[in-house]
């Protein structure tokens, strides 16, 4: 088990080590006795079996000794548990919301919130049967699967959760759809995110650094592609980051106004839309728009992607109830939504020539 960096993860590591060694010692004694008897009391060496089959004293002893060992294990475990469950006196709170298949982080003490998506490109994930036959050249031109040169394969995100070092941070966990579980092994924090309920956990990380974990509760198709990355920074740098976010947000809203005022061409939107589609849509609807069965319908030639524009915009912005098709309005900008709708209406066999402008999306919000 990883020792981790927080006081709690190190205490848990100690409990793990102690219990493991207790098991090993008991194992050596019991298996040793069995090995001895298998060797010494085989018929060729010990032809006459003994005739005992009860001994109250021995039976009482080997009932009581395990009880004592267990009590010895339970007490420190209980103490640690009490400390883990003490969520008081946190200096800041982050609301973590799981959804299929990304994490959303919201800093309740600052006006910051964003989604955190897997950053490993699908070209590294998908491969043919045997890697040797589908090698791709890396930057140096050496033929080698890209995956193997990526030490953070599947454990990298576009925007990590940024936290300050040496502060007690409280996490509130919830979910928008199914149950997820947020786990960072180095903090020993694993907490389920339940739809409609809020769970608590906390961490106080002494060391700045990048810590990686994953979703640990089966949450549907892309359960394996929902990593957690936490970027812990020294306090001063963290405060600077909060300030940067505030400025960035102002700039972004300025950008959004500019996007709305501009009239975009089909080509411009298609180019942006292709990128948005491959990041967010292609995992289910496939890069070629063919979908996967009825669960993830084809967009190529589909009724919605070639029918009335408002219906298409509504489906992309608001999703479809009780399916994995989620509402994208809160997740993407007006420009990206306009681009992806435009892209879907004009990609593959779809040739509507419709152009959806960011301002149309804005009016639909």
């Amino acid at each position, binding site marked *: *088990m*990883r020792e981790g960096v927080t006081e709690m993860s190190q205490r*848990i590591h100690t*409990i793990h080590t102690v*219990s493991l060694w207790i*098991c090993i010692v008991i194992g050596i004694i*019991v298996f040793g*006795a*069995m090995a001895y*008897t*298998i060797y010494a*009391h*085989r*018929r060729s060496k*010990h032809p006459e*079996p003994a*005739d005992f*089959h*009860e*001994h109250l004293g021995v*039976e009482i002893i080997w*009932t009581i000794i*395990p*009880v004592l060992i*267990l009590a010895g294990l*339970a007490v420190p*475990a209980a103490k640690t*548990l*009490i400390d*883990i*469950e003490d969520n008081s006196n946190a200096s800041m709170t982050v609301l973590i919301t799981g959804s299929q298949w990304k994490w959303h982080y919201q800093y309740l003490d600052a006006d910051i919130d964003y989604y955190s998506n897997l950053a490993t490109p699908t070209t590294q*994930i998908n*491969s043919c*049967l045997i890697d040797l036959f589908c090698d791709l050249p890396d930057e140096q031109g050496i033929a080698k699967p890209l*995956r193997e040169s990526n030490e*953070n*394969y*599947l454990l990298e995100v576009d925007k990590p959760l940024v936290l300050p070092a040496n502060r007690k941070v409280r996490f509130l*966990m919830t979910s928008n759809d*199914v*149950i997820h579980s947020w786990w960072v092994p180095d903090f*020993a924090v*694993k907490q*389920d995110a*339940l*739809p*409609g*309920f809020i*769970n608590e956990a906390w961490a106080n990380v002494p060391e700045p650094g990048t810590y990686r*974990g994953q979703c*640990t*509760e*089966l949450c549907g*198709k*892309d*359960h*394996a*592609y929902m990593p957690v990355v936490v970027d812990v920074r020294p306090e001063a740098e963290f405060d600077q980051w909060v300030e940067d976010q505030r400025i960035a947000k102002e700039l972004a809203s300025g950008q959004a106004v500019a996007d709305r005022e501009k009239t975009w061409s089909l080509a411009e939107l298609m180019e942006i839309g292709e990128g948005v589609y491959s990041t967010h849509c292609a995992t289910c609807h496939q890069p070629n728009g063919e979908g996967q069965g*009825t*669960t993830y319908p084809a967009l190529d030639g589909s009724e919605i992607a070639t029918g009335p524009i408002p219906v298409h915009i509504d489906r992309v912005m608001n999703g479809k109830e009780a399916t994995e098709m989620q509402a994208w309005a809160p997740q993407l900008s007006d420009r990206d939504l306009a681009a992806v709708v435009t892209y879907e209406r004009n990609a593959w066999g779809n040739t509507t020539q419709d152009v959806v402008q960011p301002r149309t999306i804005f009016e639909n919000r």
Partner: protein
Amino acid sequence: MVAHAEHVPHRSGLAAFIARWTLTTNHKEIGSMYLWFAFTMFFIGGALAMGIRLELFMPGIQLIDPGFYNQFVTMHGLIMVFGAVMPAFVGLANWQIPLMIGAPDMALPRLNNFSFWILPFAFTMLLSSFFMDGGAPNFGWTFYAPLSTTYGPDSTDFFIFGVHMMGISSVLGAINIMVTIFNLRAPGMKLMEMPLFVWTWLITAFLLITAMPVLAGVVTMMLTDRHFGTSFFSADGGGDPLIFQHVFWFFGHPEVYIMILPGFGIASEIIPTFARKKLFGYNSMVYATASIAFLSYIVWGHHMFAVGMPLWVEMTFMICTMFIAVPTGVKVFNWTATMWRGAMTFETPMLFAIAFVVLFTIGGFSGLMLAIVPADFQYHDTYFVVAHFHYTLYPGAIFGTMAAVYYWLPKWSGHMYDERLGKIHFWTATIAVNLTFFPMHFSGLAGMPRRIVDYSLQFADFNMLSSIGAGLLGLTQLFFLYIVIKTIRGGKPATDKVWESAEGLEWTIPSPAPLHTFETPPAWPITDAREDQAARV
């Protein structure tokens, strides 16, 4: 397996064959059908496991896309639990309980036929979901809501119906076993004189009739949530997805012991036979089994430590769970003491029984570690858990069943199995089991979550080892199939007693066991005048 046909009505060929096996009420024939059914399901579930391990052989997506992978994981679990392990144990119970207590048949033979014949239909329905639009159930064998309710594929309804049918089959089977044990023992056989296999099955039957209705309840709640507008598991309507987990694990934990207690019974039959020495601590074995069964009802929360339960609840479940180690330890010590100063020989059943004890104990150790809540926050839902329960189920339930088959197959078929092949099977299976599941401890501790189709590079070596082991394990079980068929078709004739110092009523009847045995109750306790008994059969 028994080639007697005196009760067949006058039909010919295929019709006679079908009529014989569909209409039979004979406990031996039904027992054989249960075992063959379980064996078939074992290979289907095993094929799914091979698919899983092939995909996990290397990082990246090579063969199975993520959605399909989840279907594999789900169906592997469901089929192994409900289709392989449970029917195999019921099959052994059908064959052996009447023979061991001196009963002519099960107490309710027609019900027995019914409880078996539900199963092929239930599993045909479950497996057919692979071919449906939207695919098979894909939410794990634990089918947590809302993944299985709001977000489940259409085939979830077939799954629900299938689970109901399996539940009916199990409950009826359990009732039959209880009634048989309570009413049809040889005159004079006290409860505390019954063979331990019978005892463990009696306790298992109680677990079954209490746990399976809870499972039926939870799938019914799913059904009404999906189609009739209730919100048991949805916060939108005032429900709670955690209610699902509490109800499911209230079934699920007793279920875990349903899948292991008969194995304890098997080991307790086999080890004394080959140690040539009576079982050490018979009474404490019975009490330990009963206390494990009792504790199984009050520990379900240990599957849910990460869901956010109150502190005192976590503490209570931790302490209750740790207590299970005590009776389990007693059993292991008793088996060791049974071997102690015996005169042991190591035929295949004994080898499997010893491997059962050793490897199950390893699974017990990891179980103890998992019970410790703070540490469980790190182990929960990782491959450490996968390693843990496969160590209890594979060398536990499945090696237990294999030990039983090698032990009793000569009695059933009248032929000895090939000892050399049996030993080859044992050693390859034991090596393969450890090669498959031991590295999972390490990948789990290193931080690999369970049920993921693709993993980061640090886990690659462990996964490759597990996959190689799994491939070997699959092959050894095909070899087992070959050994079983070879034994049924011929081989050295088995004596009535089969094993030199075997004890119990089943060894007083001829080999192969005739279709009808103990039509008049045997004498109890068994006298040395075994000829008298043979004559009476």
